[in-house]
């Protein structure tokens, strides 16, 4: 056997050894479950009942006749449509500021980033308190003579309150993402613009925004995927209430699967959600490509 054959064999053997464990783990906890999820969704699969009955599209038909599921779709869509644009713009804005020569830049960057590294349960609990009837928000509003409400138990405000929390906690994370993109823009481009007479504001719109477009694409995709699957805040703050005003699709999936143990039904709901996410990201790719100049 030639050295290169044996070297190739040594390489392959080493490689299989190196990827062996990840591949096994991936198969058991990602690859097989993806296929398995579809199978489960065609069954009346209840953890408490030993018999698993094949019911074809039964779960899907039930889903679209389930008022709560339809509300969950509406809530999830509303949540996503508002949170994604606001957090994207806010984080780009923060990144733009943090990219300026600025005294105490590290401090401000850290300040904006801290919510993002904090457990969602922690931020939810803190905001639960801020949003409560005798809470901080209402106190601040009372200082300017506005009478607040009980934000999380009022069906008109509950979902929006949670949106605000999400924007607050994720914008710092995406700020860092944008910042990395901004730092890739050569300084000379700004200098050329300044010589051409562009103000800071014009520079932001005419240089920064177009040039970080690939990053924006990435941020929007991540934002979409995250928002469609929002769960932690709902679970901790509202439990989907009041009267399903904050029930999102993933919370619906969780409830049916792990509270009512209707695993087949939950799996079907998850697949519908996954399809919606696929469509949304596909639409984004089509109508908002990451780099239209190429």
């Amino acid at each position: 056997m030639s050295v290169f054959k044996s070297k190739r064999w040594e390489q392959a053997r080493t490689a299989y050894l190196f990827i062996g464990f990840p591949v096994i783990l991936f198969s058991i906890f990602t690859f097989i479950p993806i296929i398995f999820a579809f199978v489960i969704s065609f069954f009346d699969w209840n953890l408490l009942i030993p018999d698993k009955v094949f019911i074809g599209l039964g779960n899907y038909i039930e889903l679209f006749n389930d008022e709560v599921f339809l509300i969950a779709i509406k809530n999830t869509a509303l949540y996503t449509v508002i949170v994604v644009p606001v957090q994207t713009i806010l984080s780009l804005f923060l990144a733009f500021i943090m990219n300026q020569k600025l005294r105490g830049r590290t401090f401000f960057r850290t300040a904006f980033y801290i919510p993002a590294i904090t457990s969602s349960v922690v931020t939810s609990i803190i905001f639960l308190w801020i949003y409560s009837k005798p809470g901080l928000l209402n106190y601040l509003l009372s200082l300017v003579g506005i009478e607040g409400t009980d934000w999380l138990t009022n069906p008109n405000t509950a979902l929006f309150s949670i949106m605000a929390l999400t924007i607050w906690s994720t914008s710092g994370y995406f700020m860092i993402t944008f910042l990395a993109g901004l730092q890739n823009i050569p300084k000379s481009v700004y200098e050329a613009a300044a010589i051409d007479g562009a103000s800071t504001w014009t520079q932001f719109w005419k240089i920064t925004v177009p040039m970080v477009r690939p990053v924006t694409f990435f941020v929007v995709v991540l934002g979409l995927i995250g928002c469609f699957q929002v769960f932690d805040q709902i679970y901790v703050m509202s439990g989907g209430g009041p009267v399903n005003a904050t029930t999102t699709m993933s919370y619906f999936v969780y409830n049916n699967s792990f509270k009512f143990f209707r695993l087949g039904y939950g799996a079907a709901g998850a697949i519908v959600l996954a399809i919606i996410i696929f469509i949304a990201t596909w639409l984004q790719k089509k109508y908002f490509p990451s780099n239209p100049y190429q």
Partner: protein
Amino acid sequence: MKQIKLSKIFFWLLLAVMTVIYLGPFLFSVSISFNAEGDVFSWPIKLLPEKWTLNNYKEAWEGLPFSTWLRNSAIITAVQTICNVFFASLAGFAFARLDFPGKNIIFSIFMASLMVPGIILLVPKFIILNEFGMINTYGGLIVPGLVSVVNIFLMKQFFETVPKDLEEAALIDGCSYFRIYWQIFLPVSKPALAAVAIYTFQGAWNEFMWPVIVSTTSDMFTLPVGMSFLKNEFSVNWPILMSGTIMISLPTLVIFLVFQRYFVEGVASSGLKE
């Protein structure tokens, strides 16, 4: 001149307001956690406690199963972080530097799986773990998160930036592939390994959805699950709850503050790209 000054004042005012919005809630929860009065719902709200105390922390630590949850969180986070660094770097090395049949197809499947929303995995994963009898065990909490595709991808990306010369020099010096990985690639990849470790640490420490599904009894709760459970059960005692949230947040905060500097140094000093 005057206009420039005005816009400067406006700018700093804006920055100050933003900082208050981002940090205020934390400062406020710190203030509550030191409040000696049990009832913090008195109106109007006091931004600072009238009487300070450390008792809330003591009570949270002693009166609640806090130490159990802390232990659970610590074990899960430590094992997942170490395993991710090890296995992701191994697999990343193989994908970046070794040739083997099936490499592209396996890697493509890995990458394609990133497109799949995690939510559809919950039910099947739960059923599989249930078959193995791993629900409400450390195994069930830890094993699914031992290595993530994102980390493998990160390590592969990094290893691809290591010059090929280095590997060939090592081959001529007489290294086996494992030794090249262990003695050459790992030592020069500290920044990437640190990134993987930090992201995994934060993800594992803050993870909520999976442990809330898999842990069913209080002795298996992680800190976030425990805190959300507390909030439901005894939502009256806010100072204790707040002291708990502060304690959960400290490790991630400290790690972030410490490694932020390490990161900057790591990027500046990685003399590889020459």
